[in-house]
């Protein structure tokens, strides 16, 4: 059930990101709703399907985006991997893990995208990318991290109810 529900949720978020949030820019940075959703899902304590969600999200965004093939996929894998590692280290304060994972995840995804474009021959100034895209994107994603964490916390509780020991 947790894997099946990933497709409609991530598809909806991708449509929302493409139609609405891509037009809401801070300098040149935008929100990455799919990334925030994957991280919010990965930091949940009882979740065991983070990698499936990562694969589905990566495939969806790779299909829509014009970035070189695999760039988004690799970025999301690195971000979710980091979130899972952080979940084990900062399990007492999951919201802190969410913030840290969002910041680091955004950096990883954007840097992989930048590197893939440079490898494919597209000239993009590095420091301009940092100032105009990366930092604003981190700000926007961090602001959205809180509501996403709350939503996916409820979703995790619904899909993985806590077992009461009698």
């Amino acid at each position, binding site marked *: 059930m947790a894997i099946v529900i990933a497709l409609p949720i991530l598809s909806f978020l991708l449509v929302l990101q*493409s139609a609405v949030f891509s037009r809401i820019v801070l300098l*040149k940075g935008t929100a*990455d709703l799919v990334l925030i959703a994957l991280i919010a899902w990965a930091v949940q304590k009882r979740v065991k399907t983070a990698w499936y969600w990562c694969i589905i999200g990566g495939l969806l965004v790779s299909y*829509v*985006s*014009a970035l070189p093939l695999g760039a988004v996929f690799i970025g999301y894998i690195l971000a979710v991997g980091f979130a899972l590692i952080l979940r084990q280290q900062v399990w007492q304060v999951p919201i802190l893990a969410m913030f840290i994972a969002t910041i680091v995840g955004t950096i990883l995804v954007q840097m992989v995208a930048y590197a893939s*474009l440079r490898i494919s021959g597209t000239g*993009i100034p590095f420091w301009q990318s940092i100032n105009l895209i990366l930092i604003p*994107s981190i700000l926007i994603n961090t602001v959205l991290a809180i509501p996403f964490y709350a939503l996916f916390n409820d979703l995790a509780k619904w899909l993985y109810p806590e077992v009461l020991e009698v």
Partner: protein
Amino acid sequence: MKSTSISSFQLIFVILVIGGLIALALGGYLAPVIRVVLDPFVSVQTWISTRYQTIQDYITAPQDIIRLRTRNLELEAEVSRLQSEIIDLKQQIVETRILSALVEFARIHPEYRYVAASAIGQDPSPFVKYVIINRGSDDDLRRGMPVVTQQGLVGRIAAVTSSAARVQLITDPASSINVKLEPSGAQAVLLGSFTGDLSLEMIPQSASVQIGDLVLTSGLGGNFPGDILVGQITSVRRRETDLSQTAVVQPVVDFSKLQIMLIITNFRPLDIGPLVPTPAAP
């Protein structure tokens, strides 16, 4: 007999008195007397009438308030409905204006066939400049077809599905277009960047380039039709030590407000790869 005459006398007297009073009243001589007599009656009636009105208002007020509130709610709902209708109609007016401008553009350039499409989304990544349109291969769109508006060049189709397509804008960092400058006629290459700026590279040193010169597609390379307006030069950089001049171009199309665009469907980009000489193997 005597009582009859007394009664007649009394009757005549009463008639004369009444007639006299009426004559005096009509003449206005009794006004002070009437005022003194009627004023107390008027005051009492006013007092009673005022108290009655107060009591009546007190009794009927709740019904009036309810009626007024109900009517207020109805009117507020009607206002909301009309405001939504106004917003819809304003949007239709904007779309109609855009479409009429596009029709005018198509009429000016009758040699091309066009398909109109709306922008329904943008690329999720902020590093690339692509828009997603609601037309695809079902509408005879193919990869490489140029996309324009009535203002000028927008980009070209980069990927197509059955009902949607992805358009690479001229502001995309990977975009490279062969252009010519007017009035000098110099050839150059237009490059995009993720900031949305357009830069001209490889302008010959000998070319006379001024701020305000127009930039149009040259048609070289076969990727775009020629003579489509792209933008206007806003600054020029010319150094004697450089191989070529560079310039910054302001695009004519406002990409932040891109809604409806035309795809030129009877222009096929040329593949000049086989014509490009390859270096001989050592």
